[in-house]
């Protein structure tokens, strides 16, 4: 079911901080453009389902982590269909921020089986490169980003309505452990500082 990545280049930026991911994606794109690389950013919730959930009818039973991951997968299908694949087929570079590992990190933190998530996301092509964006990246709030605008933030907000509520701090800590492990086994690397510095070169 997994299809190979077409001609372009797919860069995945994954992490638990939505605003930081958005900020980092914009900076990486700017750096790539300065190197005359054509490309764009594919962000979370392009399909609008999470926006609609947030603004939907109040007082409904909140979704569980498994439902949230299914919804993320649906949104990612939309992004692949309308944003990522068409750009890759034109030979462009796509920065997917977030991509698959962010959802798996959340699911792992919420104790969903990793095997289930790997099977679920097998429709998504492997990225050429996967970077983890840590929370230590310069604060996105300083760049005007909505501090609640991200998959992880959305999930924590939804799960806070459960009884008993989930702990966002603990979920985040567990997700960070997952990214640490990915880095240790070489499945992703920390986003290099030079990729987000103005005037720097990305493709070294």
């Amino acid at each position: 079911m997994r299809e190979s990545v077409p001609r372009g280049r797919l860069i995945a930026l994954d992490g638990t901080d939505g605003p930081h991911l958005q900020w980092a994606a914009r900076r990486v794109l700017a750096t790539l453009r300065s190197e005359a690389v054509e490309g764009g950013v594919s962000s979370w919730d392009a399909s609008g389902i999470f926006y609609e959930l947030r603004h939907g009818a109040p007082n409904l039973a909140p979704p569980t982590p498994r439902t949230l991951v299914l919804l993320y997968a649906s949104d990612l299908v939309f992004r692949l269909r309308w944003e990522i694949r068409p750009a890759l087929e034109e030979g462009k570079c796509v920065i997917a921020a977030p991509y698959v590992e962010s959802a798996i990190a959340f699911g792992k933190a919420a104790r969903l089986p990793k095997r289930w998530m790997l099977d679920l996301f097998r429709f998504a092509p492997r990225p050429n490169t996967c970077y983890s964006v840590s929370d230590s990246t310069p604060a996105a709030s300083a760049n005007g980003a909505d501090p609640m605008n991200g998959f992880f933030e959305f999930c924590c907000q939804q799960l806070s309505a459960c009884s008993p509520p989930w702990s966002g701090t603990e979920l985040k800590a567990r997700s960070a452990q997952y990214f640490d492990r990915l880095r240790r086994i070489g499945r992703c690397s920390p986003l290099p500082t030079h990729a987000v510095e103005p005037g720097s070169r990305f493709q070294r």
Partner: protein
Amino acid sequence: MSIFASHRSTRTRLQELLRRQEEKRGFLIVFEGPDGSGKTTQRKLFKTWLQNEGHQVVTTKWSSSPLIKPLIMARKSAHALSPEEFSLLHAADFRHRLETVVLPALWEGKVVVADRYIFTALARDAARGLDIDWLLRVYLPLFWPDMVFYFSVTPQTSGKRISAVRAPKFYEAGQDYTDIEDPYESYLKFITRVIQEYDALAQIFRMVTVDAEQTIHDQHQRIRQLFQEGRRRPWAEWNVDAVLDWLAHGPERPAAALTELGDLGRRPASVAGDSISR
């Protein structure tokens, strides 16, 4: 103790709990079949009969989660769904209903009558060309009903019954898949594929096939009879993973059960002053 040993121990404890719960818990009865097979009529008759017999009955319909249904409806009306999105949104809708409606009601001893279940997704999505193995994995952990009634009709009967009252809708007619402009023609082509999938699923999953070409009265009598003869599908053997998943993640869980689950029943819970967002 290794995590595997701990998990085994939790499973064992849950199985014991489920064995004790077996006589107290309710039944899950599923009505499956293609559009126009008359299953909704039978489901309503069956529900009334169950209530008259003194059962507390909860009904759940396909694509009816108040949380997810509006998302699906909006995208269906825009004809904007790919087969994978269609499938995943319905899977989310199903999971939400399972965790918030079906399992809590069953745990409390009610009878849940489901108008369509995961077999609807398997038949329709496979008819749209999606891989059945992937579809089954999307719906993991599977929660097995006690009994599944499959209302079997020919594509022609299904087509006649649907077109007698209205034109088939875009996705119902499979027009996203067939690319046929005429909804009736598309419906007949698509429902033929769906019924082929259903027939295969009915054999694999040992559904109780009801000849939906019979009279309404005859079908209803047969369903009553089969229900009375039917046995529970023991949760401790069939549904441990799904119940464990619910007890670990569900928004509202039976408190008594959680004590027995130990650490796996514990979720990363909030503590005083804990910040959710950061």
